[in-house]
């Protein structure tokens, strides 16, 4: 099966209510996810340092799918001053409800997988998952063909 490496939209950073391990962990070990948005979420899947959130719309589609390698949880979303500065570009729009997309699958095997260790594009999705994601907004997301030897520093 074909797999893709995704560089999802980086909308902000961890908020102060995030419970996490060391920042040097890749991906960081997060127990509670507080996403502070600095930029408007244009895609249905966004992130802060390889910690992912999906819109309610995408979350519902994922729940109804038989895709593997993920679970959904709550995420606290707040917006920063920088976000508010640019809000006018999206007048009339509402920030959607988000869910934490916890990825625990094995890259290149499960539909959603996360490469452990330093890696430019650690989120790996299958062709099947990609087909579902493409039904949603993926305007900012970088999409590359998954090549384990090139992308995985963890081997």
């Amino acid at each position, binding site marked *: 099966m074909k797999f893709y490496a995704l560089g999802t939209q980086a909308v902000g*950073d961890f908020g102060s209510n995030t419970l996490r391990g060391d920042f040097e962990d*890749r991906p960081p070990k997060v127990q509670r996810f507080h996403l502070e948005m600095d930029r408007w979420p244009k895609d249905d899947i966004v992130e802060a340092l390889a910690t992912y959130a999906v819109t309610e719309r995408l979350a519902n589609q994922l729940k109804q799918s038989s895709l593997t390698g993920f679970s959904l949880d709550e995420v606290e979303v707040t917006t920063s001053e920088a976000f508010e500065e640019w809000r006018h570009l999206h007048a009339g729009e509402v920030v959607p409800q988000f869910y934490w997309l916890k990825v625990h699958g094995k890259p290149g095997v499960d539909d959603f997988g996360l490469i452990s260790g330093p890696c*430019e594009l650690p989120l790996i999705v299958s062709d099947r998952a990609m087909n579902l994601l493409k039904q949603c907004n993926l305007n*900012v997301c970088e999409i590359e063909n998954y090549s384990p030897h090139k992308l995985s520093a963890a081997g």
Partner: protein
Amino acid sequence: MSKQVQQNLKLTDQGVEEIVQKTPEAAKEGGVIGGQPNQEVHGQAFANAHQNDRTLSEPDMIAMNESETVTEYKARVEQIQANRFGFLDSEDENTNDAGAGAGARARAGDAGKTKIHEHPARQAVEPLPDLSPAMQQPPFDSYVKANLQITNVPEVSEAVRQEVLGKYAEAVLDNAAAAVRQMENHLAQPNAINSDFQKIGQWLSEGPGHFAQSPEQLNRDLSAVAAGAMEEIDKPLSVDERAKMAGLLLPMFFFEGGSEPINPETIQQMGLEGMSEAELKALGIEKRVEKIVETKTREAAEALDQSEGLAKLAKKFGINMPPKDTYVFAGEKDAVSAEAAAKRLGISSEQLKNVDEASLIAQGIEKVAEYRDAFFNRYPGLIPVADRITVHHAIPKWFLKRHSGLFTAKEVNDVDSLRGIYKLANDELHNDKIHNAWERFDRANPKPSRQAVLNKVEELDKQFGHLFVPTEGR
């Protein structure tokens, strides 16, 4: 351009007078004596000249028809004399005259029975002067039956509608968006604005031929008038403001002495844009740039000509000259105001101001210049367009949080680490591409070295530097 206009004067011996007037301009153009004093003279001269005239309604002036009997002829003469011009009743006529409308006025004349009806032309742009007393006073000479004059005068154009002018402005804004990149770069050059104002003075004096090279000329002019015009471009504009904008940047055509621009359809139909100054002059049309350009640029020039004026202009955009102090707490990415910092430290702002930097650093606090202030103080030429520029940290602020200690807040907020990005480009360039690139870097570099970060800064400068403001040196 021209239109036949009738000026119609009818006087009857029953004392019914009807006058249809055109605008004073029309009368003047057509050689009609329009001013009140002249009307009096004209009325008297006319009466003198025609006192012995006979009219077609005099019996001896009415010819007998070929097959007509004498009885029939006399009956016809009597009928003609009874109602020489077959006039409708004046009230009926008034009611039926679509042209009279609300503008029609009826006034009782001195003769009691006499009514004077004035029908101002619908195109009249200003109230007509009252008819001279000589024209209103009886006795009405019976020989004055009608005075019909056909004149050729330039059609008085409708005032240009705001929505049409708005279209002009949209076209200008499109051009402005295309030109803005060069403009910003240009403005970042030393003394750019002062030089531009000198150029504005030149092209204002160059006159109507200046825009003949449009649209490229327009783009060049946009650069030249940036200080005044850009202030208007990016704001949400009302229709009126857009119209004003159009006046700022477009050549406008006027009939000589007129205050309303000729409407775009007429300009197109007449091909005015392609005409030389001489050709336009022959048509009594002038091409000029609205005075607002002069006013705007003069005001801006005055402001920029002195440091106080520049500071005032900067203040308008929330920029302090010199930069104000802000404070960054260790492990945090965003700077806070002196007031907020003092509150967190439990001291007054005044006390905070007196704390030396070494003491602050000992407490994990850095005092840094507010980064927008710092940027525009470095590039004062960009102050007039400050509200169109967002200031980006070349080293993302989150390095202070995610990689605490790698860089100081002073380094991250240093003016050499700041980049201007035009707001139109910011959403895609800064918010998407640059942030995604840094996120990608950080995923792969959990323990980056200073040099690795600086190399990344250089790489992104090379990749996107041509889109920064200013681009100089990148």
